[in-house]
């Protein structure tokens, strides 16, 4: 099982500023059976509302500092966090034991082939 955590602002097309990852991309990786969710500074209620607006059922919505909780709550072989900030995404993700990807690296990856 693969788990992917998405930052929103600067990462997803819905972000402020918009990022390069489309909602279709999220649907695509979810279609592979991955666990997906968001880890953002946006209010959790706003994260949930965003996913509902796009008709995407996610497995978790958490605040930025809660990746360790996500790891504790979900069993997966590999954990990824995709974000756009060195200080607020990359470093905390790696500290929490996640693999980190910049948004453009995520789009280049052959997800259908697994990890």
């Amino acid at each position, binding site marked *: 099982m693969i788990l992917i955590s998405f930052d929103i602002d600067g990462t997803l097309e819905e972000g402020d500023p918009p990022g390069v990852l489309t909602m279709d991309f999220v649907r695509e990786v979810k279609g592979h059976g991955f666990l997906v969710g968001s880890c953002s500074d946006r209010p959790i*209620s706003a994260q949930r509302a965003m996913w509902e607006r796009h008709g995407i059922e996610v497995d978790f919505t958490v605040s930025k500092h809660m990746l360790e909780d996500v790891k504790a709550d979900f069993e997966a072989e590999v954990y990824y966090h995709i974000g756009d900030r060195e200080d607020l995404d990359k470093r905390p993700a790696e500290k929490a034991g996640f693999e980190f990807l910049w948004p453009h690296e995520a789009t280049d990856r052959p997800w259908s082939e697994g990890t």
Partner: protein
Amino acid sequence: MSTENAPQSMYRSREGLGVWEHRGKVAAVGIGHGPTSRRWDGEADTSLGAISLIALRRAIEDAGVNPEDIDGLVMDERTTTGAFWPRGQELPWDVINAYNTTDAPLDGITQLSAEWILKNMPELTGNKFTIYGPGCMSNAIVVAAQAIGDGLAHTCLVLKAWHNLPGRYYQSGPNADDAIPGTPALRSLWGAPACYGTAIQFAEYCRKYGKNHDMMAPFISNSRRNGLKFPEGYWAQHRPEEITPEDYKAARWIAKPANLFDNDIPIMCSAAYLFTTAERARHLKQKPVYILGHASSRGQGRSFVPTLDEVEAECASSGRKLLEAAGITVDDVSFENLYDGFPQFHQFHMEGIRYRGVQPGEALDFYQTDISISGPNPVSPSGGNIGSGRSRFWMHTDCIQQIQRRAGERQVTGVEPVIGVSGGPMPTGGNFTCWSATPDY
């Protein structure tokens, strides 16, 4: 032309000065806001100067005043606390030259002089008085009120604008240097996030009175809820997101015990008011909102961060000064719009004036009661900076609109909006105004 900062003699910063000599003789009659955005997109028609011209012209139109009759302009030249033009980055000459310029190339982009405004508003043919009320709208308001009362102008525009640039706030300009002279080196260069001083005061407050951070949640939710009813606000326009108590409690710490939602979002925005004499106000389009009094705080902390004791003493003094100037008691106040950016300031200001009898240490318990716009004790009906972004002026616009009954969805319904108080920013340094529906309350 050179515009100076207002002299200290224009401020009422001591107790015992009595009722303001111009009580009820100055009125707000017009409001104008420019477009609000997160950051400047580099275009001429969205620049700081452009949105300020829009705000000023909207205020004039709202008041129904002939621009030729305006003889005063009070504003703040500084338009940021943390967004500076990057050193070495080419100046945006196409934008600069789209307007009439001054000697400062970035005038109208990262600063805003009275000279720039007058050069770009040729319709203000009658202006003969300009002065700066530095820091924020709270300052400009008291200066404008005093100027009109003193007869330095009879019809005066009051302007405050904020720019924001791409990149991270507080991490450019002097903060990007290797050295800063004086104590700012400790605060800005090697220091903690901007909210840390307030967080220290709030931590001490919680220890002293046995309160906790979670007790701020109703205030934050209420503020954002009210802000989402402010059509000019950032969150209402761009990201209509509530902050539920659950959201608030789950946010990450910035400087514990101040979390992400204890900080306001820097934005680009501009607001203008039109003030005039009570006599002239009677003949204008909008219901006049009279200024009963103003007061200023000029507290001197003994150390790097004011202590809780200093904050509480200064806020209590500010409250007494404002009520004394206005010639009212706190029981006369219908609603309060005291500053909230950082929101952990708010209880200090509110307790200082003893709004609804709330004493030091009681505000967080008060927040657990009905503080909504429909209740008997509206707290920050504007939503403040938490509700609409960092402007330091939503509170003033709201006071005027509430009393004029033009606050739309934010209109308070649990009280008669007769007298409102607004002001800030800092607990130990700010300017406060008392607004009234009648000149002789």
